[in-house]
């Protein structure tokens, strides 16, 4: 449950950045720069390994493990509950919430494991590592970007039903101002969710699909793939915004409450 990054994670992230050029170099030297799909797969798996080692290496506490498992279970159940609406899924929204409330490292774990476990239901395939990577990185980045936000979303106006506005101002709580700030932050989170779902998940998985199809990645082919994927990515991004708008406040509130009640804070 830590918000700040440990040295180990920074090291892991740096290591994974070194792996990528190495794989590209191997691909150019030994495969004549043709094995796009194989190279892409190798990059994706190699870049997840350091995170996995960092997570396993610090021997996470039982409480941390169980809370992560709860979030993964809710995310997988969410994906399963919306099985009949293609692309309209709460997965990214829940991963973002986990990242914000539990920190970047746990966010990565929730994202990557949700991708893996939910594919036991939806079918494992060559896309699994890419999904794991995309969800994981989304959780990681949301944890980094909104490090200080979680406490300020869940907490606003906890006592609001019991005191009137004037009373709360007199007590120095000023619930209305807090609520307003909170709404602003949720709007920010939604905007972030839209962009990251569209760019990171959508474009990354479209690129992955292209590497499976063709030996020659040209600008035209990329643009054609992105245009073909546009409606799907838009629906996915919009669904993330909708779910964040509905879930961000109640979920943060619950996670904050558990963190406070059981002293899981940092």
């Amino acid at each position, binding site marked *: 449950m830590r918000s700040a990054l440990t040295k180990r994670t920074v090291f892991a992230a740096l290591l994974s950045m070194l792996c990528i050029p190495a794989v590209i170099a191997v691909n150019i030297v030994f495969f004549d720069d043709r094995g796009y799909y194989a190279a892409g797969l190798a990059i994706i798996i190699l870049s997840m390994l350091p995170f*996995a080692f960092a997570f396993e290496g610090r021997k996470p506490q039982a409480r941390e493990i169980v809370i992560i498992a*709860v979030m993964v279970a809710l995310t997988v159940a969410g994906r399963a509950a919306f099985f009949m609406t293609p692309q309209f899924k709460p997965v990214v929204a829940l991963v973002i919430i986990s990242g914000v409330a539990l920190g970047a490292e746990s966010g990565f774990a929730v994202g990557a494991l949700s991708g893996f476990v939910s594919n036991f239901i939806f079918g494992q395939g060559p896309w699994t590592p890419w999904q794991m990577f995309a969800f994981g990185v989304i959780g990681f980045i949301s944890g980094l970007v909104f490090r200080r936000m979680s406490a300020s979303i869940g907490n606003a106006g906890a006592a609001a039903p019991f005191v009137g506005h004037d009373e709360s101002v007199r007590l120095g709580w000023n619930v209305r101002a807090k609520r307003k700030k909170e709404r602003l932050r949720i709007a920010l989170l939604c905007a972030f969710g839209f962009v990251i779902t569209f760019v990171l998940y959508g474009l990354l998985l479209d690129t992955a699909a292209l590497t499976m199809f*063709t030996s*020659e990645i040209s600008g035209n082919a990329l643009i054609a793939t992105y245009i073909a994927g546009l409606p799907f990515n838009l629906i996915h991004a919009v669904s993330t915004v909708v779910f964040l708008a509905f879930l961000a406040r109640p979920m943060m509130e619950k996670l904050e409450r558990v963190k406070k009640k059981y002293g899981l804070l940092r």
Partner: protein
Amino acid sequence: MSEKNKAYRMADGYDALSANESAERWSVFEGFHPLLNYLYFAYVVIVTVFFLHPVLLAISFASASAWSVRLGGAKALRFGLIFVLPLMLVATALNPVFNHEGVTILGYLMDNPITLESILYGVCAALMIGGVILWFRCYTSVMSSDKFIYLFGRVAPAASLIISMTLRFIPRYVEQAGRIASARRGLGFDVSSGGFAQRVKNGGEVLSIMITWALENAVDTADSMRSRGYGLPGRTAYSIYRFDARDGALLLVLCALTTIVCVSIFSGTVNMGFFPLFSMNATSAPALVAYVCHAVVCLSPFALDVGEDFVWRSLQSRI
């Protein structure tokens, strides 16, 4: 399925998840040790993905198709025809449209050359995609999640624990949500009556209560784990898998055969190049040996199943 049986299956955590697998037929290969299952899939998927050799790909694709249909029956056949085949056609068609390398020009499409080499590459890429998807389908029905956790529990204990807890949590949450909903019905907040908005509101309440319960319950679980010594050194794990002589024999045979294939690939006995001109190794005796070895490996689970069917039928006919 009887009511009692159904309730029993609901209580068993994995069943709700593997409901879509229940139609799959049992394979002899499933009875082998998880390590063998895993190494087998690692070999076929890696060779299929990393080495675009037409003959090896054709063998791999044909074996994957045969085995997935044997495992999944009509459902697998439908999946192959509705999903995999169109995907493969798109892959074949897409490559020559965007890739104009190669020296054998067959014609022009909107001033862009269509080359034989890029079509051949498209066909191989299609076999690769189709093959990998079908292999993964077989993987899903053979490698259950507990086998995966058994294998990786020692390498990645925390992640494996999260995966197995998640699989247990999902049916548990479904059950708990049902309990909360019936308690709320008693209070007059019925999820299944009233207008749409009222139903959504009541459903949301149930979900909210369930999530709070899940998080509280998680902390209880964690404390219970800690007091039972989670994370202390010297703890053992229960497993139902045993590596017996049969596993050893099959592992030895598969290892020998895959080594021959790998040596042929790395020594260049089996090779191919697509651009600028398509080239492939001649059909020499060593190359044929490699093809046969690859075919035997790829087909072995399917052959084991067919052999078992044959034995079963001959035993039945004798009765």
